């Protein structure tokens, strides 16, 4: 085609500047929605954390007092620090999903008959809502009839009331959370393993690498992108933990399974009643923890973009 893209100036201004204006027109609806519902609320929450507010009446400016109250344990003793401590536990324990997912992926990365169905069924827990996972595990742990105690009974142990025990409860909930999360990491690694370069494996075999050394030196480096995504989604998932706690224990017993996400909800919207400013202060703390990770993720993505 020999038609020139320089259109004569009979064309409208819009036509001449199309390529500069078009991206903004395409972006406008998305940015508008996102700004109103996501970006602005972050700043509003920061602002709100400096006020005392019951959600209805007048807001009273209190400066940093909400943050001081976090320190002085406002609602009941240790509530904030228990939540913070549990969040740290969630972060570390949840990361077990990554090696566990890798392990299952290695186990299933075969080509026997029916293996595709097995892979789908192993992935199954991820598709179910956390609410149902929470219910299922609440019954699984039940001290009277739960499958866990029934099985412990077979080997002459138990019964233990996992969700009623202050020292066990967070482990119990994290275990329930690990179930779908491990399935997610598994599917990431299965996809990654599919794309591993067979020539490098052959070369490794010729060099005498097998088993662990093969996995560590040849396979894992090639799985880096999968590991990165598994890390991102697991960290986000750990800090977002809310559904399971709400369904399984409602923060109990005696507030020992609270995390910041749940504590914030409790303070702002449930029986502790409408302390919006205080809730916002808790949310800000959670946000700042998340921000460390977000910055790291974005920085990694930025390097990648520049690398291309």
């Amino acid at each position: 085609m020999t038609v020139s893209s320089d259109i004569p100036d009979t064309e409208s201004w819009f036509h001449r500047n199309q390529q500069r204006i078009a991206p903004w027109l395409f972006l406008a609806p998305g940015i508008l929605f996102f700004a109103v519902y996501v970006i602005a609320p972050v700043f509003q929450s920061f602002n709100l954390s400096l006020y005392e507010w019951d959600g209805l009446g007048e807001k009273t400016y209190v400066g940093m007092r909400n943050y001081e109250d976090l320190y002085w344990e406002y609602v009941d003793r240790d509530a904030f620090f228990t939540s913070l401590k549990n969040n740290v536990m969630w972060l570390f324990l949840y990361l077990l999903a990554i090696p566990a997912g890798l392990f299952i992926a290695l186990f299933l990365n075969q080509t026997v008959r029916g293996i595709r169905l097995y892979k789908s069924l192993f992935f199954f827990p991820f598709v179910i809502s956390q609410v149902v996972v929470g219910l299922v595990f609440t019954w699984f742990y039940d001290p009277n009839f739960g499958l866990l105690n029934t099985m412990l009974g077979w080997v002459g142990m138990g019964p233990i009331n996992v969700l009623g025990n202050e020292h066990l409860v967070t482990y119990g909930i994290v275990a329930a959370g690990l179930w779908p999360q491990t399935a997610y990491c598994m599917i990431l690694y299965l996809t990654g393993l599919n794309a591993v370069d067979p020539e490098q494996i052959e070369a490794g075999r010729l060099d005498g690498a097998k088993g662990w050394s093969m996995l560590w030196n040849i396979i894992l480096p090639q799985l880096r992108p999968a590991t990165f995504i598994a890390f991102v989604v697991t960290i986000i998932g750990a800090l977002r933990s809310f559904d399971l706690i709400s369904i399984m224990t409602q923060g109990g017993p005696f507030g020992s399974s609270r995390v910041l996400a749940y504590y914030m909800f409790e303070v702002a919207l449930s029986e502790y009643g409408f302390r919006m400013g205080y809730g916002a202060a808790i949310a800000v703390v959670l946000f700042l923890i998340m921000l460390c990770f977000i910055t790291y993720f974005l920085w990694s993505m930025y390097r990648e973009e520049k690398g291309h």
Partner: protein
Amino acid sequence: MFPKPIEKQSQAAQVAYKSLLPVALAFWLAPLLAVALFSVKPDADFTSGNYWGLPSSFEGAANYGQVFFNSDMPRYLLNSFMITVPTVIGAVALSAMTGFALGIYKFRANLWIFFMFVAGNFVPFQILMVPVRDLTLELGLYNTKTGLVLFHVAFQTGFCTLFMRNFIRALPFELIEAARVEGVSEWRIFWYVVLPLMKPALAALSVLIFTFIWNDYFWAVVLTQGIESQPVTAGITSFNAQFRAAYHLMSAGSIVAALPPVAMFFLMQKHFIAGLTLGAVK
């Protein structure tokens, strides 16, 4: 392939592997199988302490019949659909456009807008909770499906934009340049050139967002409260309160509530996994 294909190993290893598979699977899904077993048992089994034995009679039809014809479950399921489907359409439509804009055009703010979407997608829900609830109240949309849909569309646009933009980046750019040389307008390029090529991404995102939104619990609790608008994840707690200690019915209810995304997953498996694992392979 790693680990070493099992076919290249001894006969014994192969037999061991093949028999280990179903055992491992049963172990992995044990909590779920237990619920499935509960859901077909009669009430009498629970009062007589027969939790783990075979059902004394098969009551699957009766139990699931209760859930479907004698509880609020159908209403909650309907609400879930009426929240999920518009959200999928809205989020996919918005992000097809933002993804196109960020994937095709070169302008200074491009990467920063892209990072804004990505970062927003990672923020904890709690930092949005009070302002979003307030906004929804002010708009008169508290306890409506519309209020929930508007928020979900906005929030999911973050993840969807990330997905769409990376997908469009991988398309052959010459196609667009050729169309421009022909004098095709930008909108028509989007509609007739790029969109048809994006079908796999649209399908993958649709199933993913369907699952995410169907399974949402937090926003359902924050923005709705009654049977008129609550989706099934929030409704199941009232359902369980209604049938307190009736484990056979609660189990059947949980299975029904979990089923639509499961069906979606099995029907659209290829797209679902392609969506979830985007970026896991270079």
